């Protein structure tokens, strides 16, 4: 049998169901590899011993009808986990242990999975490189000193480095798809309202969405099937018919119309990204789908609109971290002094920057010029997609305008960092599903991703197209285990 941690989720599930592997063997294999991979700094909190106990318990009385029977997995540290520290990558929640479980993780445990630990991420999911985490940056398993992307950088690195068979991230402006692209993995941001936000530390409520990250489209489909559910505890959760995505997965996309938006051909885009896109178009044609040129005219306004809406919501969402009720508290002379010290010491610079931007754009006299206008732009962007979807079934674009960059390369230049989200952000603003799949390598051998954007609630179609392309590409991630001594 091949090395356990090299197996796909589907293989692991099959092997556990056939009793060729026990949950304990699988769990132990991932723990061993994670222990040897500390240099990647993917984990904020480890749950190894408890995971082993749970695996043993599972093996004693295995329920093999479950979708994730005894499968160990680590999750982004933005999901609240009962009795297990949840930090959101921030000092301000460094000591926070929830007494409740997020709906998404609960759905996962209900299907038999076991928590390995909590994965590193940008502080409050604000970042595109995992460098804003209070717990330090994460190394990309692709190459030393390369960022894994963000904010779900720890999640992407853990999947790429085979420290967890699958994982979940959250995506507010690209936080699943961009790190997936940077690490040669698959990441799906579902339709807004597909996965419950209950128990997920909020960044920007109208944009946040949890989603699966995996080594393959099939694994992603299975995990999406598990985590997506209607949840009355989240007022923005939507009650729609959810497919059994993995069962209904097909590579037959004959006759599908795939849109190519001309506005995504941005100035200064590296040639290798353009080449990748053309390659993707060819693959789609080879699968029997039809290519249609489309226009999404308001694309260039998406990023500025996003960097108004997201910080605005964040500035309010993060007001609860005030040192009064839980989390970090600095000593102060009085209430105001305590607030100021707690929040100055508890939040990192990027979070503070976004709180400042958000507070500014919401303040009286500026609200109409910024927040209200951004909301109007958001509507126009959504209209663009609605218009396009009258002609096409899905849209194909690159995931990011470049491959992974070096650690420290963009930390002093927030705008250049924000530009990384240029292809992913419109999808969040429109509330649509989008997937990033690895599709090639740049000259350094770093992975590059293609993005497929679908209609709302049409995850099945997005997954099918991704699945078809995945088969054609036959992408192999170049993981050398450089960090294992």
């Amino acid at each position, binding site marked *: 049998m091949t090395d356990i941690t090299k197996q796909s989720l589907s293989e692991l599930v099959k092997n556990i169901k056939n009793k060729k592997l026990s949950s304990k063997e699988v769990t132990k294999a991932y723990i061993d590899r994670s222990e040897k991979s500390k240099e990647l700094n993917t984990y904020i909190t480890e749950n190894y011993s408890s995971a082993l106990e749970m695996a043993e318990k599972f093996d004693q009385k295995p329920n093999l009808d479950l979708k994730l029977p005894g499968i160990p997995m680590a999750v982004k540290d933005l*999901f*609240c986990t009962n009795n297990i520290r*949840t930090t*959101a990558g921030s000092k301000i*929640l460094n000591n*926070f242990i*929830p*007494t*409740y479980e*997020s709906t998404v993780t609960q759905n996962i445990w209900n299907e038999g999975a076991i928590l390995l630990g909590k994965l590193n991420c940008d502080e409050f999911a604000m970042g595109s490189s995992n460098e804003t985490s209070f717990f330090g940056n994460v190394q990309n398993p692709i190459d030393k000193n390369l960022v894994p992307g963000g904010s779900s950088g720890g999640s992407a690195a853990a999947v790429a480095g085979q420290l967890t068979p699958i994982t979940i991230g959250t995506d507010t402006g690209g936080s699943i798809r961009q790190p997936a692209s940077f690490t040669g993995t698959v990441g799906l941001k579902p339709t807004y309202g597909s996965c419950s*936000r*209950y*128990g*997920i*530390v*909020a960044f*920007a*409520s*109208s944009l946040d969405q949890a989603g699966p990250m995996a080594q393959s489209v099939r694994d992603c489909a299975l995990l999406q099937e598990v985590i997506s559910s209607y949840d*009355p*505890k*989240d*007022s*923005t959760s939507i009650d729609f018919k959810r497919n059994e995505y993995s069962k209904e997965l097909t590579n037959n996309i004959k006759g599908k119309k795939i849109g190519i938006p001309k506005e995504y051909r941005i100035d200064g885009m590296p040639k290798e990204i353009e080449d990748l896109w053309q390659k993707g178009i060819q693959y789609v044609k080879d699968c029997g789908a039809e290519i249609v040129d489309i226009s999404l005219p308001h694309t260039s306004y998406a990023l500025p609109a996003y960097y108004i809406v997201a910080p*605005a*919501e964040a*500035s*309010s969402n*993060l*007001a*609860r971290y*005030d040192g*009064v*009720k*839980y989390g970090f508290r600095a000593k102060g002379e009085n*209430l105001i002094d305590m*607030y100021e010290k707690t929040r100055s010491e508890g939040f990192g610079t990027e979070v503070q920057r976004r709180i400042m931007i958000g*507070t500014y754009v*919401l*303040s*009286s006299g500026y*609200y109409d010029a910024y*927040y209200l206008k951004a909301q109007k732009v958001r509507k126009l962007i959504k209209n663009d997609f609605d218009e396009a979807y009258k002609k096409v079934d899905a849209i194909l674009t690159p995931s990011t305008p470049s491959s992974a960059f070096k650690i420290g390369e963009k930390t002093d230049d927030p705008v250049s960092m924000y530009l990384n989200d240029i292809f992913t952000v419109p999808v969040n603003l429109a509330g649509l599903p989008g997937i990033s799949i690895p599709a090639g390598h740049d000259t350094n051998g770093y992975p590059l991703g293609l993005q497929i954007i679908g209609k709302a609630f049409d995850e099945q179609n997005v997954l099918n197209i991704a699945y078809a392309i995945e088969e054609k590409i036959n992408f192999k991630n170049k993981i050398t285990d450089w960090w294992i001594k």
Partner: protein
Amino acid sequence: MSKNNSEYLINRKDNQYEVVIGLEVHAQVLSESKLFSTSSTKFGAEPNTQVSLVDAAFPGMLPVINEFCVKQAIKTGIGLNAKINKRSVFDRKNYFYADLPQGYQISQFKDPIVGEGKVILDMPNGQKEVGIERLHLEQDAGKSIHDLDPQNTFVDLNRSGVALMEIVSKPDLRSPDEVNSYIKKLRSIMRYLGTCDGNMQEGSLRADVNVSVRPKGSKEFGTRCEIKNVNSIKFMQMAIEYEANRQVDLIEEGKIIDQETRLFDTKKNETRSMRSKEDAHDYRYFPDPDLLPLEVSEKFIEELKNDIPELPDDKKKRFIDEFKLSSYEANILVSDIDIAKYFEEVVAKMGKNKDIKLAVNWITGELFAVLNSKNLEISQSPVSAKNFAILINLIKNGTISGKIAKTVFELMIKGDKDPQKIVEEKGLKQQSDPKALEALIDKIINDNREKAVEYKQGKEKLFGFFVGQAMKASGGKANPQLINEILKKKL
């Protein structure tokens, strides 16, 4: 102070000033659970025992609207003759305070659930219409307790997230009396609807009072000051009185009134500046992205409309038409739902041959006096409506006299006994047998011959003496009307 034509004006030398008042009433929605969580709203629980993870704003917790509170707000809107908005939006009002766990209050800013409406006040000089600007739903904050410890402030989050209706009036009120009448009317309507218990002691009803003054006859508004969070009608009236005079003094001295938020100090009976307009919070309102716009259908509203009981104005009209009551009497009876209920039950129990006027006199006289002296609400009345009705009927059919009825009533208070039984047990039945009374009167006239002669000679005052003697001799049970008739005949 001039009260000519019931107008409330403030006089200084040659100038007269009119006072303009608008109220923002915060009424706690009568509901088992909070606006966005399932925690209990019960008053008086141990601190921090009615707090959910949502109320305490734990990470990842989300608000879910309580449909019952929405219904309560819409019902109140209907009661205020107001426009119900089918689409309303919850906004976040952002500010930091220790008893505000989320760092924002969920409220409705631009799109409230209820729009313009009106309330009719019965003032001594006629009816007055007060416009309602809007009604919106919002969360209450927790409570900061500063006096339990010299160094620390304690926070009780039991109230955090409790549903409030903020009812904003137009600046239509002109005197402390009108404010009194307005609050009472609002309270009455909400109690009829069962949407707010109106309990001011428990903080279920409190108000921010906006006060400005202007020269009599002026059409423009003066600069207003807002007096925050006043929790009794008496204090509202005192605060307005003080504030209006303070503003008039400033104008008279040629000074400028600053638009500001003020506090009413109940001990010193004065308002004090809390913060100026410049220091006003920038609440950074924006639509709460955790909540979708609240949409209600025509059908939903219609169903609630069908659920609306008869409200004070309609009830008053019916009482006047059906029971021939005066406007004054009707006002008293409809002012509180429990009084109206009691009255209507008495009417129902009195049966066919009823004397409604007598019942009204007894309710507003004897019963109210007892309730007042015992500090009881009518819902706690020691005499049930049923027994009260029997008592009125006993008077009406001549079984007992009004005077004896008072004795019976006193006995009833002690244990809500059937007055019929009391009358029988104590032998209090009125003597209405003319023959027996004639014999009794003959004896009295015999015993007081001299006085009888004096009466005949024109000393008419002595008639009362004979009535008294007759009543005394009968132990108070003689039918006074018969005594009168017989005495007139015999003397």
